[in-house]
């Protein structure tokens, strides 16, 4: 409503500004997206920035971090920093591609189940819940054991196949609630086709949930890929943060105290994960006003709903003596 009113006054610039700023209003989202964005940049340009060939061996075995090797070297004299920079690409690529496929599956299953209801919903929800209960790692291990040496695409597909149920579950719940709202009935009465209602009425109203689901699936996929590569499953001949940990473990880096070898890859995964989780916490606060906490409200913090529902502005000023 307020958009319309202000449009009439011709003051459109001012309405656009706070709207665009909404995503940037939460410092959590800003910090989270910056950290994640930095790693996306590393994934794109990493191989160009790497000072050495990550596979090239040298006589400088298990060297401490120094000017020549900023993050030291492995037991075969390979440069750890170069491995991190080159490995970022596979780790991030698997994460993002698996999340795109997984979230698409989640949207298809979740919205279909929620919108159609009835038997279709029963069937799809049951399948979703079954995949939710089955422990992911053993299933992935059994699947990938049959796909030896098949590269990152096979691993990505396997991960996305196990990543979608969470998203499908939340999207189904949200669609169930949206389906009963007036504007959907209005669209039905206006004679809109089902696909049009789903695409233009239901889907845009779930964009925030879709984005958080997508980010969560990237985090999930990177964690799973790192775990699988650490076990030596999938392709450890190409560099990723997980395969670095695999080689560190197999060369007993943990017993020889070569912390510069095994700390950086895990820290990279943790930082990417933190970026994604922070972004999601910020988005949660944007879409769910109940979660917003006002910093300087310490004294009244238990009274937030009360304080916020008090009239704002000075329309009562004349009434008070």
């Amino acid at each position, binding site marked *: 409503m307020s958009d319309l009113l202000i449009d009439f006054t011709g003051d459109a610039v001012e309405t656009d500004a706070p709207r665009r700023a909404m995503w940037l209003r939460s410092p*959590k989202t800003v910090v*989270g997206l910056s950290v994640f964005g930095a790693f996306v940049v590393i994934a794109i340009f990493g191989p160009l920035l790497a000072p050495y060939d990550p596979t090239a061996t040298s006589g400088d075995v298990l060297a401490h971090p120094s000017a020549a090797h900023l993050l030291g070297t492995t037991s075969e004299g390979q440069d750890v920093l170069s491995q991190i920079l080159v490995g970022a690409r596979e780790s991030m690529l698997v994460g993002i591609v698996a999340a795109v496929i997984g979230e698409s599956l989640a949207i298809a299953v979740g919205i279909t189940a929620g919108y159609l209801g009835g038997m279709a919903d029963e069937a799809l929800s049951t399948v979703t*819940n*079954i995949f*939710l*209960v*089955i*422990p*992911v*790692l*053993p*299933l992935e*291990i*059994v699947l990938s*054991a*049959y*796909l030896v040496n098949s590269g990152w695409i096979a691993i990505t597909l396997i991960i996305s196949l196990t990543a979608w149920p*969470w998203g499908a579950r939340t999207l189904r719940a949200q669609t169930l609630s949206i389906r009963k709202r007036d504007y959907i009935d209005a669209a039905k009465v206006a004679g809109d086709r089902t696909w049009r209602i789903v695409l233009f009425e239901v889907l845009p109203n779930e964009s925030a949930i879709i984005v958080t689901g997508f980010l969560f699936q990237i*985090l*999930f996929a990177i*964690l*799973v890929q*790192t*775990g699988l590569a*650490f*076990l*030596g*499953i999938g392709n450890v001949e190409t560099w990723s943060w997980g395969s670095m*940990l695999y080689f560190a*473990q197999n060369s007993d880096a*943990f*017993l020889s*105290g070569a*912390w510069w070898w*095994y700390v950086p890859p*895990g820290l990279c*995964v*943790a*930082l*990417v*994960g*933190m*970026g*994604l*989780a*922070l972004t999601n*916490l910020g988005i*949660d606060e944007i879409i*769910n006003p*109940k*979660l917003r*906490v006002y*910093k300087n*409200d*310490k004294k009244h*913090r*238990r*009274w937030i*709903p*009360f304080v916020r529902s008090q009239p704002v502005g000075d329309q009562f000023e004349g009434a008070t003596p």
Partner: protein
Amino acid sequence: MRFLARRGIFYVLTAWAAITINFLIPRLMPGNPVEAQMAHHQGQLTFQETKALDVAFGIGLHQGFWSEYLQYWNNVVHLNFGLSFTYFPTPVSTVIAHSLPWTIILVGLSVIIAWVLGTILGIVAGWRRGSSWDLTLPAGAFFRGIPTFWIGLIAVSIFGVRLGWVPVSGGYSTNVVPSWTWAFIGSALHHSILPALTIILGSIAGNVLGMRNMMVSTLTEDFVLVGEAKGLPGHRVMFRYAARNAILPSVVGFALELGFVVSGALLVEQVYSYPGIGYVLFQAVGSEDYPLMQAIFLIITLAVLLANILADVVFVIIDPRTRQGAIT
């Protein structure tokens, strides 16, 4: 009761799905695992080993799909999973029987401790929102993104190797024999401290964040306001009014995340060479022991299902709506 009946049907369906997936995977995957194994061993397989593969997959029987499927069910019901390659000629079921108790005790206890601690921390963090307790958000986000096994690797190198406080691998010392003696139990406890702490640290963040946000939402409800207005002491409002309602989704979340948490815990076993089922699973992967691998997938799934059933029972006890048929 309707709630429990519905959940019961769901669990039967899930168990059926897991067993059927297990039956289908070797058939849908490219290549024949029996032939792959034979090629791998260059015809060195004994008759017994070939037989073990046949039992595990029912592939060599050539009896048609349905007949093989029934045969497979018969094997599962009798816990006949064939012979393990890694520990040849020990039956797969024996290998599992030896390793499963380790995992159930270690992972079960750690996950429950992490849930209880995480929920309490989440309650306090939610109650004290807007204060420095809000730092749990970035801290939780960081811990959520850490691979659990990596925490284990760091812990081993600090407390095991550098400080030498705890043993770095195994489930018990080599100088004791597994038995119900104090020496053995003490040694097992000593060996399980670090793996348990790792699993707790790795899985607590999700619980804290979830519970904290549920608490913050619940605290905006009117009944909390009423509690405050009545002048009740803070802890009573915090636990009896807010937390009691906020905890319900946390119980559901616990059950749903279990499959993921258990996956992380299995990797921790690998880091510590802990003699549980995760360690055995990864040994099986290394030696392409398909019968053992598949049986372990099945057993872990059934164990997680059982834990879900327990969580449902707890849910029925704490949420009266399930008993009155409001939630089905």
